[in-house]
């Protein structure tokens, strides 16, 4: 009936359709431009962050030591491969090595003032080109810091990727359904449980290990797959999942109540907005109100709050992996601390900066996708 009384509407709709392809391409350009700008900005922040890390590390000359160690190792290696060199007497050999090390140190600029060196270090750190570790080695036997870290990165990503995806969707769904059932028993339960999120994941991990591995003996104490690792990919996957149950649950327990609580509150605030009341008055079905009038306008904020949560979870990963003996970069970090392996500690800090940067960028990108202001071109200067 409304269409009959307002025939102009039909015209308007067709005109919108004809220009929609143009609008879409414009929106994509804006989206790309926004993302590119964010990427540049984030890269710049990562550079500054890593530079600060390098500065802190080198206040005690630790980066210098890494560089000197790497140079010496290379020189000695090159010299020992030379058959003529091996026949020389001891003193002469040391003298030659000393000389070559000095030349190399000059070549790499170790005799230059710190301000210049610091930028060289910055480049090395950004490319994870931090030479050889002092004690740790990768499972394949490499002692290159880059290899050690890259080898362990997938395990960390599997564990925290899974935990965070579950956390995101479960809490979103439950938050929405609780906001509908405001005041119910479950609502009050979540409210009462929210303070438990004050403790980090590793803390609940201790309890979970105690109960499920220690007392009930149904799940493993730690590790990523059973030893020896199964050859069959299916069995490998099952074993991996069995080992993932406890660490993932620990992460979930520590974060889920507060996340549900926040989103429930958030949805409740937004569901009392005038336009929602208006939609209700129009008699739209609940699902549609939820999707179009509550969820849609709040998505940017949801994404932002999730970004903050991820940042805290990443840093908590170091201890969670240690507690669960999970062979990721967090546990590597812990081991590197134990034996004062400077290059690995430094590289790990840089990797964490990257991880945070990538997380923030991905969420910024999703933010751009869901925030109409970016597509229409208003909010292109960022949050």
């Amino acid at each position, binding site marked *: 009936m409304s269409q009959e009384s307002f025939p102009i509407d039909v015209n308007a709709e067709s005109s919108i359709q004809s220009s929609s392809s143009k609008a879409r391409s414009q929106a994509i350009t804006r989206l790309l431009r926004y993302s590119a700008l964010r990427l540049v900005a984030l890269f710049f922040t990562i550079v500054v962050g890593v530079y600060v890390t390098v500065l802190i590390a080198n206040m005690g000359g630790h980066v210098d030591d890494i560089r000197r160690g790497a140079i010496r190792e290379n020189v000695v290696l090159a010299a020992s491969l030379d058959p003529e060199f091996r026949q020389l007497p001891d003193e002469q050999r040391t003298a030659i090595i000393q000389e070559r090390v000095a030349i190399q140190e000059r070549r790499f600029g170790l005799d230059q003032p710190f301000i210049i060196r610091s930028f060289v270090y910055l480049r090395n750190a950004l490319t994870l080109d931090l030479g050889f570790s002092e004690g740790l080695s990768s499972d394949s036997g490499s002692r290159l810091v880059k290899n050690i870290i890259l080898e362990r990165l997938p395990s960390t990503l599997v564990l925290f990727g899974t935990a965070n995806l579950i956390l995101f969707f479960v809490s979103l769904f439950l938050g929405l359904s609780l906001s509908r059932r405001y005041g119910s028993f479950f609502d009050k339960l979540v409210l009462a449980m929210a303070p438990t999120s004050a403790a980090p994941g590793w803390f609940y991990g201790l309890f979970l290990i105690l109960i499920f591995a220690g007392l009930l003996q149904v799940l493993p104490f730690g590790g990523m797959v059973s030893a020896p690792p199964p050859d069959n990919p299916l069995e490998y996957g099952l074993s991996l999942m069995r080992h993932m149950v406890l660490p993932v649950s620990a992460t979930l327990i520590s974060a889920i109540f507060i996340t549900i609580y926040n989103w429930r509150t958030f949805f409740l605030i937004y569901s009392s907005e005038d336009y929602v009341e208006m939609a209700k008055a129009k008699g739209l079905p609940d699902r549609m109100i939820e999707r179009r009038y509550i969820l849609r306008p709040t998505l940017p904020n949801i994404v932002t709050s999730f970004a903050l949560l991820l940042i805290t979870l990443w840093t908590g990963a170091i201890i969670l992996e240690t507690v669960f003996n999970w062979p990721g970069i967090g546990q590597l970090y812990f081991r590197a601390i134990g034996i004062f392996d400077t290059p690995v500690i430094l590289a790990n800090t840089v990797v964490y*900066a990257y991880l945070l940067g990538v997380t923030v960028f991905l969420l910024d990108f999703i933010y751009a996708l869901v925030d109409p202001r970016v597509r229409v071109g208003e909010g292109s200067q960022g949050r």
Partner: protein
Amino acid sequence: MNVIAARLRQIRRYPSAIFGLVIISLLLIVAVATPIFIPYGEAVRLWRGGEDMWAESPRNAWPIWYNWFRSEKLPATIVFDSADGDGETTLENLSADTREARFIYEFDFPYDDFPPEMILFSKAEFDEKQPHVEMTWFTPDGREIRAGEFSPGPSDSFRFAQDSRLQRRLERSTGIDDILVEEGMFDDPEQEGLQVLKGTYRLEVSALLFEEKSNVDVTFVSYGLVHGIAGTDHRRRDLTIALLWGTPIAMAFGLIAALGTTVTTMSIAAIGVWFGGWIDAFIQRLTEVNNIIPLLPILIMVGTFYSRSIWLMLGLVVVFSIFGLAIKNYRAIFLQVRELPYIDAARAYGANDMRIIFRYLIPRILPLIIPQIVTLVPGFVFIEASLAVLGLGDPILPTWGKIIQDANSQGALFNGFYYWILEPAVLLMLAGLGFAMVGFALDRIFNPKLREL
């Protein structure tokens, strides 16, 4: 201020907040009382004093109240020290220069399990001739077992478990091969297998002194499987001291960090908003960079490379948390407050910038930061614990996190020493819950938008 006080009184309406307040008060009382009754030096001595300090405590013993929940009672530690006048001591002259000192220690053993270790410590004074010590063990059923002999040096110990002749004698007397000495001494031979014979045991120690000035003091320790209020760790240390001293440290760390961070963040946000321009932009960019810098890894780096002092860590935590995401929230609020008419009024009467910031802008949002401070405390308490769990705890002070780290590195969960992890964990949990509960209630009181929900 009256408004704030009136709002605070509303907390009575939240039972969980009352519960939280009770927990916080108890923790604060412990935090204040501990340094008074166990001064810093004494605590450090008790925790890091060396082996002698803890020699008379068992290794990895459960807390004493663990027995209340068990039908089979675990043995407690039994100590007789002749220097303290425990037991019966007699001195007898056998000949001109030979005397015999007899120490009789009688004790009740009502437990269902065997002690893990038995040691006789001795301190002897002599010039040339060492005294000679012989021990006899009397069981409740009237058996008499020669329990070893040795000639003690100035400071010596006799471990019953290492006496192989005693072990063989006990094998014969109980009829069980490869029996442990501690088990054999308390086993009931009438029963099949290992079974504790309950009743009164007696250890007689006879020391022959061959010099006029010679003297000997002996201490008999039958180690328990339960010990003290909090149990002991792998180095025989009583956990009570660490749990008690962990409280003031955790409280101080959490409260100082939360207060310092919030107040500084708020002031910086206010200054940025008020002056605007490049100052505001600089603060904004700094916040973004700071978000990319991972706090815990930086703390770890500083901890490994420079110093593990808890106060340095505290300072770093505050510095890195100042430019946190809270600054954006405060900024948003200050941007609104700046436009209010009373600020214009202040400017009209000629108030300078600092006066406006600290007397007009900041007081306006004080109610908002009260829940913020309380909610932040648990996070910082757990940061301290996290660092300790990574082995970067303060090198001297005992803290909750360091107990967890000790326990974890000794495989406490795997070996079944659950108390070792549970005690500090429960305290951490209580601290975290207490502050979080109060913080939640305060948030609802001071945030009217939440209160309606």
